[in-house]
């Protein structure tokens, strides 16, 4: 503080002294010239005054140059208080205030940037800003979560895969398209183009998770239609099925007639079986979720299916990461869904040697994903869109309801079930459910500790010796 004052004082003093000297000498020179005849002396005095004036000018311009340098540095380095202080030492005027105004403006701009970035992070859609050279220049939180790795090159984001990344980059501005990520998730992509001052034309790519909402709407529409159809069908089927049974008894003596009625009866029985399968999936009870450990669920199911796996020489391994992963789900429904997925996998690996099913589990803040991967026959490209279509089956004697039911269970919980092809062969089903945090699980299991198995054991399934 002191040095600043004395520095600024020195500048003022130096200028003031020189000004006084110039003024004094100028006055003396004029007096000499006007009242005496010492013209030579007067010229000499005037010359000295001029020299002092030049010196004063150089002192001022030096200070001005220094101040200019300081200002430049301030502009480059930002809110550098020492610089501001140094400047004010050289120039006595209100440089502090100028620096303060400048800093406040910069802080406001930073605050606005933070606010906008924070706002972007709250957007649930994943946003990528991509430069013309394919480099990612800005991402929001959803995009970082989606990419899972540090994002530099858009085409190198592993969760897209090169083909999807290319088609995303080729999206025309304003266009919307449903894409399937490498993990089977479906997303709605849209693109926009914008130019910021001083930047090349940027591309904004946004990806919105749609599976849940879209599938739920689709499912409800399908159920409504099927319910109306089924009601009519069942009402019409009632007399056919029942009367053909009654007639068969009446017509026992007439072989031809009873043979004909027998056909009607058989076909109506077939329809009735279909109707009964339909009922199984049309009337999914509303889930009653509770907090449950994934590891415990899997080991329960393993106990149930282990004999089947052993008999069919299927090696089934489960890995739950983290070991205390927990979901908020209806135990009966979830168990049924996972059993259906495992049965489907077991059917798929029937002809594989060795036959393997791998169950893994991943968690993030909101969701727990259980992946069931097999090395079985897989699903032909042509049938991939029909995997979850009710009653669609490629297996002799298959009902076509197992996977649909599993998907309905996932959707009823606000989760999803997606399918993708496994590498090099087989299928992967990913069941995503809302996560329950570990603390909630601990407090929930405190009451029923008896049955909870070692979490880390993670259901090591039947491992045949073959």
């Amino acid at each position, binding site marked *: 503080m002191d040095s600043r004052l004395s520095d600024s004082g020195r500048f003022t003093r130096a200028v003031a002294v020189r000004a006084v000297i110039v003024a004094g000498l100028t006055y003396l020179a004029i007096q000499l010239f006007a009242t005496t005849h010492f013209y030579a002396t007067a010229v000499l005095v005037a010359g000295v005054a001029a020299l002092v004036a030049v010196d004063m000018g150089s002192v001022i311009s030096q200070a001005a140059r220094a101040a200019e340098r300081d200002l430049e540095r301030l502009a480059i380095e930002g809110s550098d208080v020492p610089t501001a202080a140094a400047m004010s030492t050289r120039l006595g005027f209100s440089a502090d205030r100028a620096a303060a105004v400048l800093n406040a403006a910069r802080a406001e701009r930073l605050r606005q940037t933070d606010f906008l970035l924070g706002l972007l992070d709250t957007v649930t859609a994943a946003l990528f800003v991509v430069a013309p050279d394919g480099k990612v220049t800005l991402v929001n939180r959803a995009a970082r979560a989606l990419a899972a790795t540090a994002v530099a090159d858009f085409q190198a984001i592993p969760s897209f895969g090169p083909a999807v990344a290319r088609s995303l980059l080729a999206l025309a501005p304003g266009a919307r398209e449903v894409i399937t990520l490498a993990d089977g998730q479906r997303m709605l992509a849209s693109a926009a183009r914008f130019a910021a001052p001083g930047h090349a034309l940027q591309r904004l790519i946004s990806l919105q998770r749609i599976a849940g909402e879209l599938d739920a709407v689709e499912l409800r529409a399908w159920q409504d239609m099927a*319910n*109306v159809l*089924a*009601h009519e069908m*069942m*009402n019409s*089927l*009632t*007399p*056919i*099925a*029942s*009367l053909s*049974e*009654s007639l068969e*008894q009446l017509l026992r003596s007439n072989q031809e007639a009873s043979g004909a009625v027998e056909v009607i009866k058989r076909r*109506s029985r077939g329809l*009735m079986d279909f*109707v009964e399968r339909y*009922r199984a999936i049309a*009337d999914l*009870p509303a889930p009653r979720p509770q907090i449950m450990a994934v590891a415990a669920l899997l080991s329960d199911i393993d106990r149930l299916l282990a004999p089947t796996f052993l008999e069919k020489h299927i090696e089934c391994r489960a890995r739950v990461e983290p070991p205390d992963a927990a979901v908020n789900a209806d135990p009966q429904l979830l168990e049924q869904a996972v059993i259906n997925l495992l049965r489907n996998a077991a059917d798929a690996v029937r002809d594989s040697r060795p036959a393997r099913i791998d169950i893994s589990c991943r968690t993030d803040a909101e969701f727990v994903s259980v992946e069931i991967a097999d090395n079985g026959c897989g699903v032909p490209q042509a049938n991939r869109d029909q995997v979850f279509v009710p009653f669609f089956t490629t297996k002799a004697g298959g009902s076509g309801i197992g996977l649909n039911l599993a998907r309905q269970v996932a959707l009823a919980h606000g989760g999803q079930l997606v399918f993708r092809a496994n590498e090099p062969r087989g299928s992967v089903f990913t069941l995503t459910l809302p996560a329950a945090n570990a603390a909630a699980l601990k407090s929930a299991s405190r009451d029923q500790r008896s049955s909870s198995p070692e979490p880390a054991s993670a259901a090591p399934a039947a491992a045949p010796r073959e």
Partner: protein
Amino acid sequence: MSQTSNSVLVVEDDPDVRRTAQVALGYHVARVEAVESLDLLEGALAATVFDAVLLDMNFVIGERSGAAGLDGLARVHAFDPTLAVVLMTAYGGVTLAVDALKRGAADFVLKPWRNDKLVAAVTAAAQLTHARRKQETLQLDALERSAIERALTRHHGNISSAAIALGISRAALYRRMSKHGL
């Protein structure tokens, strides 16, 4: 399944389904009557003593809540609490079935039915009705017996005063006492 002396009332709006139920049950129960709407329910119940009612849950096209059936169930029980009701619906929800059973339905049959299952459900319902009626008679007898006993105690075994207190003749009281073995 052999024929029983049971009589059954079918309440169903679809004429074909009504006829079908009559045919399917015809071999197994003595009498099957059918009405087409709930409006005719009480009239039919008043005219005949039935052993079971087979009641459709939906009477309006497009209506699948089963509310009409549950209403009918309540009306049957208001008329005769002992009469067992089997509900039937084409729109079979587990939830609906549970609801119906909670409200006192004897059983729940999904359309289309298999004849043997329908017959089994209706026969079981008739048996339930019989059991309830027997229980009711027993209760009536027990009530009468305890009233006579109370009257006799109150009048220190004096038959005449007890008969006057009960509002019946002495001879009638003697008859009832011997019926109850008093």
